[in-house]
């Protein structure tokens, strides 16, 4: 037996996310959370250093979704089948009164066009494109989230498309929703998602020659330590924080 095993700081029992019972309903893991107070290494005297919790997002919804969600899902399914798309929406999440359609990236233009044009759907307005970076969601690190609004039916839905970090390409929707021109440029600027067939995919908020994509999780916040009355306050991303 080595000395390491006898030391008071024994590693906690292996608790990979597989061994943790899933909460009720299906969930989707996008990473794990270690410890409790954001402390790393031997400085952690909290006793929670070995805690491993999965980070889970709301899981897939099962039919019936309730209310008008089923109408929209049915209409989209039928319209997609007519357009030659067997499974238009592989996953649907209903959470906190909002419905999210997860769409394969290659299907996005077809689905978006159906959502805009089909008279049972009529999502005339795309509010925004928002990028989200899940560094631990292996194979689908970069998400583009579209918020669609149907003024005809007064409904809101969300489309979510994922792309792996190694191949950050998502088809552009500018031809369908011209308003997404700047939104996609911003998402490219901040996350590095390349929107194929965008008319002019350039940086929009950062300078043209800026290296990196600032809102990715692996991009540091930056900042310098500040001295105040003899003490030093580290920049926000290096302070002790709670996770």
């Amino acid at each position, binding site marked *: 037996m080595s000395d390491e095993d006898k030391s008071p700081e024994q590693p906690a029992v292996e608790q990979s996310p597989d061994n943790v019972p899933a909460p009720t309903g299906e969930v989707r893991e996008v990473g794990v959370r270690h410890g409790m107070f954001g402390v790393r290494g031997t400085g952690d005297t909290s006793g929670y250093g070995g805690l491993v919790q999965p980070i889970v997002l709301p899981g897939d919804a099962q039919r019936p979704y309730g209310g008008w969600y089923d109408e929209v899902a049915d209409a989209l399914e039928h319209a997609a089948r007519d357009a030659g798309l067997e499974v238009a929406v592989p996953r649907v999440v209903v959470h906190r009164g909002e419905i999210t359609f997860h769409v394969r990236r290659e299907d996005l233009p077809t689905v978006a066009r159906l959502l805009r044009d089909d008279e049972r759907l009529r999502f005339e307005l795309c509010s*925004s494109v928002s990028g989200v970076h899940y560094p631990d969601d292996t194979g689908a690190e970069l998400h583009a989230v579209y918020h669609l609004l149907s003024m005809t039916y007064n409904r809101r839905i969300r489309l979510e498309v994922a792309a792996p970090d190694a191949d950050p390409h998502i088809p552009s929707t500018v031809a369908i929703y011209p308003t997404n021109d700047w939104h996609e440029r911003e998402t490219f600027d901040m996350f590095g998602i390349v929107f194929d067939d965008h008319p002019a995919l350039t940086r929009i908020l950062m300078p043209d020659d800026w290296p990196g994509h600032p809102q990715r999780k692996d991009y540091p916040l930056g900042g310098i330590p500040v001295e105040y009355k003899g003490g030093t306050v580290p920049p926000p991303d290096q302070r002790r924080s709670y996770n």
Partner: protein
Amino acid sequence: MSTDQDLYAGSSETSEGRVFTVSGQDWDTIAEGLADEEVMERVVVNMGPQHPSTHGVLRLILELEGETVTEARCGIGYLHTGIEKNMEYRSWTQGVTFCTRMDYLSPFYNEMTYVLGVERLLGIDGQGDDSVPEKAQVMRVLLMELNRISSHLVAIATGGMEIGALTVMTIGFRERELVLDLFELITGLRMNHAFIRPGGVAQDLPPGALDEIRGFVALMKKRLPEYADLCNANPIFKARLEGVGHLDLAGCLALGLTGPVLRSTGYPWDLRKSQPYCGYETYEFDVQTWDTADSYGRFRVRLNEMWESLRIVEQAADRLAKLDGAPVMVGDKKIAWPSQLAIGSDGMGNSLDHIRHIMGESMEALIHHFKLVTEGFRVPAGQAYVPVESPRGELGAHVVSDGGTRPFRAHFRDPSFTNLQATSVMAEGGMVADVIVAIASIDPVMGGVDR
């Protein structure tokens, strides 16, 4: 002054053509320079980013043929401050302090849409006993509508100034100051309030505030007609605005424009009516529209909306009079900020009663206070998007939580950002002087555009 004497940039030859740097009163040089050229097919004018008529640091790249604009493009990003990224490194409550600074003319709307998203994820956005109390909702409505008035006043004032209507500017800022005084009375600050917090609002209404609000409403009812008298039928004003910056309903939807621009096409789309939040469905007001789809229509929509806002403010003040002493923060002590500030002899500061309680009486209360203030609360994993009708259109925050004490991601769909895309469509084919009017009718706030 001639361009040759400019120490920093004079006229120069590039592969693209001749470059002039204009800093005022040197138009003769330009005119001569242009006459020199054998073929002057097109002139590209870089306007901004510090031109006074561009509503802050907006850069316009205009291609001119004589005085006609053939191409107009926007350059933005000069005011990018990384607020969204910064919010990922602060607690959920601290996030309000950041996002209030985005669109600095409508801070309460920035706070509101973010807080509504957080509250939806927390599950306290309903009507039940454990959700946000009524008084907090009424105070939010009151502040938002006052904010709509102050924001529209600036839109009209700066828009007027840019076409030479200086009186509109001076009286606009005169009235806006009254609204800011009310903000200062209620929240302690004229701007950057961070007053709307997850779970309610930061502070109860101070004594005497309702009288001040009623006095303001009465005064505004006298003063708002001044704007109508100055502008509505003013032939110069109308000549500058009518038919300028035309964008019809189809164009608005394709380019994602909302707010007064959309309503000036005659389509009564207002989120306060169609997807109400904070109890807007219980207030009496009308959605204001115009049918000309031009800058003049947008001006009239804004003017009429201020009247509607006054109506809502009156109703909210009446409700607040009946809600004296009611809570303004959610009852859940795991979310609600542990204490309110108190007015001391030297101004606003910590509540001495609360300090006595946590420091002298209850160790548990001290622990609770410490945990909530430093660590904050956890928000269940998920994502929410709850847009509000800001003075400029649909303002929404896409709030993503991974179950932690800090936002995993907060993205703001700012109406200024989206609406500014219409610059090209509104300006191209028109006169260069009309570009200013068209942009003023969009009313972009660069703090919101660049975030």
